[in-house]
Structures are given as structure tokens and as C-alpha cells.
């Protein structure tokens, strides 16, 4: 019951932010005019603005936010560690590396799906590596150290590929791949990301009961009929799908998967299965809000989303590390 109320509240928040995202922009359309253009296609220029520029931006913000929230909640549930987050441990960075390779080698131009698939490959490699290094218990120190190593490597290789590009603009886009932005994305990016993302959502959604069982300990979970190997495989595939698809079109956006589950955990009574749904909605709200903020703070400058999410997320991360140390984990 409490969960239902929370989910209803979060859904309302997402809907309000989605609406606001559609109504904010430099074209200066009145809300009624904007909605008429979006829904009924009134006015050629207005329709183009609403359907081709603002709608994909709002959709991607919600999709990517939900993905990051969900992936964060799932990883934290599996590792039973609140510090696990796709951005921090290098999964997003590795996905960005895959995407950059696909773009610069021309693979993405030859075959559109090569972009999300390459990002997926990067993400799979990173999640698998992290889970292998962190071990079953997911001890904080190993997890964070492995994450630092994977992030640094992926970041360096991304910079290298972009610096080697014959394109004079590519090197300047290192920032985009590391911080993420939704500026000037189009419906084609939505269609590019959606299939893989939907698959990832479906995979991660099945983890709920297994993660709940895992809170009782590994042996208890196994005896309840949850195969840890399968749980882990689903987590790797699901996380890689959602993070890969999102990063391929919007760059690596950090901290969403850390902040959102952390805030919502007390409200769902720390049950991982409930946290998955709540975090998906919370993540969508956070990225929508961040994307609205970048447009309000510096409308002309394409401020990166990761700047805002890190401003909120990094202090929280420090706080979590402090608390983890105090609890002697």
C-alpha cells in the first residue's frame, strides 16, 4: 500500500517534469500553442520544434534516467553495497568507449545499430570485470578500486580514440562522452536506444524476488530456489543493455544510480524488489530535472548533464564512503 502511494507520487512527479521539459525551450512557444503543435500538428515550424526537437529530448531524459536508476538499484541489491553505480564503477565510461569506437571507425554510419551494440559490448565487459573483481560479497574497497581502474582506462581510451580522429571537432567532444548531454538529440536516437533499453528493463525487472531473497544471505537465497549464477548473468546483461543504450546516445551520466536508490531506500523499507520500481521512476525524474536545469541555467551553452548530477551526487558519495567506513564494512 505504501509502495503504491510512493509509486503514484513518483509517477506524478515524472509526468510533471516531462511536461515541463516539453514546454521549456528557446523558441518561446506558449504552452497552449506548444501542446497544439505536439498533439495536433498545428503550425509547420511549431510542430517541427515540438515533435523533432523537444519530444525526443524529454523522452530520452526519462528513458535514460529510468535506466540508470534501475541499474543502480539492481547492482546495489546484488552486491549489497550502496556504492555500486554504473557511472562510478566505469560501466558508463566503457559503454562510451564502445560508442566512440563505433562512431569513429565508421561502423555506426554503415549500420545504425552498431552504435548501441558497440556501447553494449563495452558495458558488458565492464560489468563482468567489476563483478569478477568485486567478488560475491562486493566489498566496498575492492569495488571502488576496480571501478577507478576501469573508469580511468575507459576514459583514457575514449580520449585517445577521439584525439586520433581525423575530425577536427571530435577531440572537443571528450567532455560530452564523459559528462553526457541531451542537447539536439532526435527521434532517431530514441528509436536507436529503445529496443536494447526495453530488453534491459525487462531483464532487470525479473531480479526483484531474487534480490529480496539475497538480503537473507546467499545460502538462504539458494535454498529458496534462486540460482545466484543466473541472477548474476541477468544483472550483467540487463545493466549492460540499459547503460549501453543510454550512453550510446547521450554520453555517460554519473551518480543517478547512486543518488536515487539512496534517497528512496528508506521509503520502500529497504526491500530491493520495491526499490527497483521506485528507483526507475526516481531516476527518470532526476534526469528530467537535470536536463531542465541545464536549459534554464545556461540556455546557450550546452552545459553537461553530468555536471549537475555530480554536484548533487558527489557530496552524497563522500557521505556514503564516510558512513561505510564508520560501519566498518
Amino acid at each position, binding site marked *: 500500500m505504501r509502495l503504491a502511494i510512493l509509486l503514484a507520487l513518483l509517477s506524478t512527479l515524472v509526468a510533471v517534469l516531462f511536461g515541463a521539459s516539453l514546454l521549456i*525551450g528557446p523558441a518561446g512557444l506558449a504552452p497552449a500553442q506548444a501542446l497544439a503543435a505536439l498533439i495536433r500538428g498545428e503550425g509547420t*515550424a511549431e510542430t*517541427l520544434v515540438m515533435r523533432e*526537437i523537444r519530444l525526443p529530448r524529454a523522452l530520452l531524459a526519462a528513458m535514460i534516467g529510468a535506466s540508470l536508476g534501475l541499474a543502480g538499484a539492481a547492482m546495489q541489491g546484488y552486491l549489497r553495497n550502496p556504492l555500486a553505480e554504473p557511472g562510478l564503477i566505469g560501466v558508463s565510461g566503457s559503454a562510451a568507449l564502445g560508442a566512440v569506437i563505433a562512431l569513429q571507425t565508421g561502423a*555506426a554510419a554503415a549500420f545504425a545499430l552498431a552504435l548501441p551494440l558497440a556501447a553494449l559490448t563495452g558495458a558488458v565487459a565492464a560489468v563482468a570485470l567489476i563483478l569478477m573483481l568485486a567478488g560475491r560479497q562486493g566489498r566496498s574497497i575492492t569495488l571502488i578500486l576496480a571501478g577507478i581502474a576501469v573508469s580511468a582506462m575507459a576514459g583514457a581510451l575514449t580520449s585517445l580514440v577521439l584525439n586520433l*580522429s581525423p575530425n577536427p*571537432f*571530435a577531440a572537443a567532444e571528450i567532455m560530452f562522452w564523459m559528462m553526457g548531454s541531451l542537447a*539536439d538529440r532526435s527521434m532517431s536516437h530514441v528509436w536507436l536506444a529503445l529496443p536494447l533499453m526495453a530488453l534491459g528493463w525487462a531483464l532487470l525487472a525479473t531480479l526483484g524476488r531474487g534480490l529480496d531473497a539475497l538480503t537473507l544471505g546467499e545460502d538462504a537465497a539458494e535454498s529458496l530456489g534462486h540460482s545466484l549464477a543466473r541472477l548474476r548473468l541477468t544483472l550483467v546483461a540487463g545493466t549492460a543493455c540499459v547503460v549501453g543504450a543510454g550512453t550510446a546516445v547521450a554520453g555517460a551520466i554519473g551518480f543517478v544510480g547512486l543518488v536515487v536508490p539512496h534517497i528512496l531506500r528508506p521509503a520502500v523499507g529497504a526491500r530491493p524488489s520495491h526499490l527497483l520500481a521506485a528507483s526507475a521512476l526516481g531516476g527518470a525524474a532526476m534526469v528530467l530535472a537535470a536536463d531542465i536545469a541545464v536549459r534554464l541555467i545556461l540556455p*546557450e551553452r550546452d552545459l553537461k548533464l553530468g555536471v549537475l548530477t555530480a554536484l548533487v551526487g558527489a557530496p552524497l558519495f563522500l557521505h556514503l564512503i564516510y558512513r561505510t567506513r564508520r560501519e566498518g564494512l
Partner: protein
Amino acid sequence: MALICATAAAAEPPRRVVSLNLCTDQLAMMLAAPGQLISVTHLAADPMISVMADQAAGFHINHARAEEIHALSPDLVLAVSWTPRHTVSMLRRLGIEVREMPLAERLEEIPANIAQIGEWLGREDEAEALIAEFEAGLAALAPGNPARPRAVLHYSSNYTSGPGTMAHQILTRAGFANIAEEAGIAGGGTLPMEQIVMLAPELLIQGQRYPGASRAEAVMDHPAMAALREGRSGTISDAEWVCGTPHVLRTLARLAGLHEQITGSE
């Protein structure tokens, strides 16, 4: 006697000239005596950005780094006012004469720059001839039809040029009204796609594409811009007007041609 000799030596034209910038590369290649210019930048040899790539192939290529320039032992280095300061001061510390050409921001400033390079190279007559040729070419491209179709310059990352830039001057001289002016952009700036769509220009002029891929250029393929392109569009090569040299007349001629097409068909 010694004084006279010194004056004569100072007036002697430089024999080993090295250029550090694409724009001085081009003017120097047009004006220098055979063998006088010994090195130009790698940009001058890149056909994507230089209209004189073929000529540049005949020169030593530099990357505007102080050490390699010093190794060429030049007696004059041509730079521009926006050449990195540390490179210029390093060369001067090494005792090399560096002269800096100002940026031409208007068509009227091009002859002055040609004359300046001509004077530094001791090639005043060649400079005068080039100026005369440029001014005749400019006069020949006087706008015809008084109609002023609205156009937008749409470069990578939604960058555009407004009043105060040479690109704007060339665009308006070719007979177009620049919508960047309506949007209140002075100098260079970004014009969000939403605004371009709402201002509905009759002509969309985009920059060229470079190999590899970039998000900056992806905006030119955005469906909203593609829909706008279905009206009218043109592509202008960066190489032709990145520098204030007589080559900008090619861009002016191209734009004047587009203007004639649009106003003629109406």
C-alpha cells in the same frame, strides 16, 4: 658609412620566411618571391581547410612549434594576432623576428593585410597587383536583384555568424538577409535549432563535413534541419572563407549565384 650599410641591410627583404598560420601561409604563398618562403603550416597543405593545398605541397610543412621553427633558422616569421602567445614569445626570446598580421574582420580590411604582408616580404608591387585584382573582382560581384531572401549560416554545434563578422558581410553583400541579425546575434554565436526552425529562413547554408564523426556536425543532419533543407540549401567550404584572402570572392560568387537562383525563380 657603417650607418648606411646598416640601413641598407635593414631594408633588404627577408630571405628565409616561415609562416605559422593558415592565413599568412596563403598570403605569403601568393606574394613571396621564389625561394623566399621556406615553410608553411600543415593546415595550408590540408585540402579540407586550405584552397592552396596544391601550392603548399611544394614547401616544407611545419606545425607551428617553436623548436621546429627555430631549426629552420628563419629571418622572418609570419604569425597572426591569435597565434599562441607562448610560441611567439619563445621565438622572440630565441632572437627570431616575428611579425603578426591582424585579423581581417571585414572585406575592406583584406587589401590592408595584403599590403602589409607585401611590405614585410619586400614585394610591394606584387601586393599592389593582388589588391587591384581583388578589388576588381569584388566590384564585379555587385548585387543584382534587390530582393533579400532570408538565410541562415548553420555550422557545426549550431554555430552561426552575425553582424560584425566577414561571413555576415559576404552573405548580405550577396543579397541575403541574415536571420542571425533578427535573432540579435552580434559576432559569432550559437543559434539553437528551435530558433532557426521558428525563424523559417528561405535558405539554409551549412558548412562542409569532415571525415570521422562528431556530435558537433550531427546537428546538421538533425531531422528538423533536414526538413528545413527541403526548402533551399547550399554548402560552403570552410577553406574558401576561413581566411581574409582574395579567395573569399569564390564564396561571394557562390552565394550570389544562390541568390540569383532564388530571386530569379520567384
